[in-house]
């Protein structure tokens, strides 16, 4: 026995050293260590290694999971994955540790007289089905809802969509990707008529300059950032960080440019102004492939219940667009943005230089924005005006935060307005879905109902009486969350939570269904670059924990929809994926077959004639282009992308005399979103045990606050108390504070504002007004 322990410790030490070597290689490509030590480290024990995409962020790194005696014991980067080429980040290495947390949910729990009582899965599923049915009978189909996730697998998202829209006949399905990706979706659809990036990560190997818009890639997408740093060492590429706060990314970049929150809209227009006025516009590309449009302005911010908005696009011409841009000269924009005229011209010059290939990256900074759709449109404008798009090393690229925000939320379509192919508003799309689902087309309602924020407002109001959440923790992640927590606790609401761990969301549940974790089931995720990746079940889930997709199937069957869900328990993920593929048949979105995905580290759709597509809309690479031209933006009927006239408008709430600070929220490298998994990984928890409030040193001095002292952050909605962090990881500008949101004990979302982009309905977690008090 003692020998085994020694051997296991020795193995873990080697794993720890190998992880450090991989990390060192990402910082110093070509770094060498003593040969005899490397030889030792390559010993990998008697483990079975199986490929999977990482459980965490949207990069979709390929990992190899080592299992031994029915237990996952190690993770390493998959050298065969074109995404990460063997690299892994600190979260990735430790992901499987949380599976064995002591408080893992293993038995269904039902609330009786205010206390949770263990029950069997059969009884719990019976109760969920009967409550859902009873609620529909009493209050109608739109009184029940499901709220799922960008971490749901493709089969999980698909059966949820089929269950709600095809079986029950309500569009009350939305997901947490509304909180992170909806503006990117709306941006792609309004500009190109087709969702998701046209390029892929291979752009990193071709670009000359990377401009990151409000995006701390060094912490949030560290493996991609490492690939960029590697290219800097090999080819001398430049990285420019354009942000509202100095972060690890800013420090590692060649240039950091700071702007006042919300004024990215103005700066993007100023770049377009410079491109046109300096003669850098690619006239042939614009004439051949673009139209110009404008939409409504002064849309509001959605802070009131039942807020509605519908844009009304109007065609304009280049001259009108040029007139509009006259309000955005670098000199005018410099005054509101705080960005120097020189830096605005510098950015414009990079985009305008025909000899430089440029990739723009962004994530939550542009998406969690009350004008999120607009800022997405404006960055596309820059790439369209210069023709720097859909080519190796040239393109705009919105990164995702969750592992299947693209594959599940966007492609399967777990939003209220979406279907697996197309949208509920389109009759042909409804007919297409109904045919595959084998349901009457009239069962699928033509009108979207509630997006995430409004769904939880409806729960608070009582318009929704029953909600089932899967793979998400909304009562930590929603903005202005205390309203929704109180709403969920109201007497006649019924809350079902499927999860792996107890969370503040499961704390208000009437039924808690224990879920299987990532590698305890077969699954598929789709990452930011349209790559679909498959993994097989590697270990059994504990106790009665069950895959979320199968929970949905079981409830659907109990409600009388069994004929629509004819899958086998053992193989349901594969059967569901094969059915799902039917929705996307055709050259524009064909998904790779399972046998391909089982063999290799994923494939990018459209997958046509045995080949993935790396650059969409470019006839050289994309078989769906059929207009006889070099580029074909086939998402639009006339094959042309739209350059949008979108103005700068202020944030929903800005600092004033009473609340003089901007509040910006976000993430840290150690923790995944609300921390329900990573805070159960001791090494990550110890590295970052609690949240904090970052202050500028001048502000800290003015308030007499020193590092670690307790600070109360107060908004018009709520308060939270956190220790101060000054000159540590990040540095906010004067008049701004930053708080990460992973810590359920320091709930910053009690403070944030539930304002959202009127087009995408994505909330803005980056800007509201607060005051601070030393505690």
């Amino acid at each position, binding site marked *: 026995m003692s020998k085994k*322990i020694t051997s296991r*410790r020795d193995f873990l030490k080697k*794993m*720890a050293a190998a992880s*450090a070597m991989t990390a*060192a290689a990402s910082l*110093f490509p070509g*770094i060498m*260590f*003593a040969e005899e030590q490397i030889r030792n480290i390559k010993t990998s024990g008697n483990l079975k290694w199986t490929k999977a995409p990482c459980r965490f962020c949207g990069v979709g790194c390929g990992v190899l999971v080592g299992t031994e005696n029915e237990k996952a014991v190690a993770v390493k980067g998959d050298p065969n994955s074109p995404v990460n080429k063997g690299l892994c980040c600190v979260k990735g290495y430790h992901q499987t540790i949380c599976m064995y947390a002591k408080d893992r949910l293993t038995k269904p729990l039902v609330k009786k007289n205010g206390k949770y009582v263990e029950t069997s899965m059969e009884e719990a599923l019976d109760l969920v089905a009967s409550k859902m049915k009873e609620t529909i009978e009493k209050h109608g189909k739109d009184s029940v809802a499901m709220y799922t996730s960008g971490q749901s697998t493709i089969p999980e998202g698909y059966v949820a969509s089929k269950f709600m829209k095809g079986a029950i006949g309500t569009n009350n399905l939305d997901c947490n990707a509304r909180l992170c990706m909806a503006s990117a979706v709306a941006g792609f659809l309004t500009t190109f008529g087709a969702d998701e990036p046209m390029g892929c990560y291979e752009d990193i190997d071709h670009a000359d300059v990377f401009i990151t818009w409000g995006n701390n890639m060094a912490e949030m997408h560290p493996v991609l950032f490492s690939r960029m740093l590697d290219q800097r060492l090999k080819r001398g590429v430049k990285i420019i960080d354009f942000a509202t706060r100095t972060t690890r990314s800013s420090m590692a970049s060649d240039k950091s440019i700071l702007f006042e929150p919300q004024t990215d809209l103005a700066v993007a227009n100023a770049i377009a102004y410079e491109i046109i006025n300096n003669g850098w516009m690619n006239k042939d590309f614009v004439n051949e492939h673009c139209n110009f449009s404008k939409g409504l302005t002064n849309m509001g911010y959605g802070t009131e219940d039942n807020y509605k908005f519908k844009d009304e696009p109007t065609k304009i011409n280049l001259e009108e667009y040029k007139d509009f841009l006259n309000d955005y000269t670098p000199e005018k924009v410099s005054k509101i943005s705080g960005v120097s005229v020189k830096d605005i011209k510098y950015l414009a010059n990079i985009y305008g230089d025909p000899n430089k290939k440029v990739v723009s990256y962004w994530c939550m900074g542009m998406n969690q924005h009350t004008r999120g759709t607009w800022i997405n449109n404006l960055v596309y404008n820059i790439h369209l005006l210069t023709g720097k798009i859909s080519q190796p090393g040239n393109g705009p690229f919105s990164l995702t935060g969750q592992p299947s925000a693209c594959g599940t939320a966007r492609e399967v379509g777990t939003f209220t307005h979406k279907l697996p192919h197309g949208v509920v508003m389109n009759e042909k799309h409804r007919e297409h879905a109904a045919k595959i689902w084998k349901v009457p087309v009239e069962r699928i309602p033509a009108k979207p109902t509630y997006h995430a924020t409004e769904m939880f407002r409806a729960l608070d109001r009582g318009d929704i009486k029953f909600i089932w959440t899967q793979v998400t923790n909304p009562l930590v992640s929603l903005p202005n969350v205390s309203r929704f927590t109180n709403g969920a606790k109201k007497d006649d609401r019924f809350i079902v939570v499927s999860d792996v761990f107890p969370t503040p969301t499961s704390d208000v549940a009437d039924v808690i269904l224990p879920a299987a974790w990532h590698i305890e089931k077969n699954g598929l995720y789709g990452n930011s670059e349209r790559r679909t990746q498959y993994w097989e079940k590697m270990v059994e889930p504990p106790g009665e924990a069950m895959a979320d997709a199968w929970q949905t199937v079981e409830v659907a069957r109990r409600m009388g929809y069994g004929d629509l869900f004819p899958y086998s328990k053992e193989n349901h993920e594969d059967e569901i994926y094969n059915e799902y593929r039917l929705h996307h048949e055709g050259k524009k979105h064909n998904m790779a077959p399972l046998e391909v995905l089982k063999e290799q580290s994923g494939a990018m759709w459209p997958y046509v004639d045995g080949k993935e597509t790396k650059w969409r809309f470019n006839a050289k690479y994309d078989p769906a282009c059929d207009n006889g031209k070099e580029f074909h933006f086939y998402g639009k009927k006339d094959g042309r992308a739209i350059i949008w006239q979108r103005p700068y408008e202020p944030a929903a709430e800005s600092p004033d005399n009473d609340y003089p600070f901007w509040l910006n929220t976000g993430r840290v490298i150690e923790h995944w979103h609300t921390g329900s998994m990573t805070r159960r990984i001791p090494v990550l928890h110890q590295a970052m045990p609690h949240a904090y409030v970052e202050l500028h040193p001048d502000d800290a001095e003015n308030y007499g606050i020193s590092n670690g002292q307790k600070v109360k952050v107060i908004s018009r909605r709520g308060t939270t108390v956190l220790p101060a962090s000054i000159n540590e990881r990040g540095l906010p500008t004067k008049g701004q504070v930053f708080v990460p949101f992973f810590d359920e004990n320091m709930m910053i979302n009690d403070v944030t504002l539930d304002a959202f982009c009127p087009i995408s309905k994505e909330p803005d977690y980056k800007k509201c007004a607060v005051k601070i008090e030393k505690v």
Partner: protein
Amino acid sequence: MPIKSYLAHPHDGRYKELLSELSKFTTCDVIPSENEELAIVVTDTKDDFEDKNLQVEINSIKSLKMLSMVSGFETE
């Protein structure tokens, strides 16, 4: 019984001094790079208390510019 790995970055010109200081800890394995000024440190301690003390001691080395953790395992 924690096992952790770190990247240890020296202050400019003090790499050898850092390696020498790190080599004094019996609960550390040090793997120096041959062509960059960077060392891998793997710690193997009996409990959290010893692990925290060791971190404090390593961080007090004057030639150390930054110690960044890469991975960690709990063997119990």
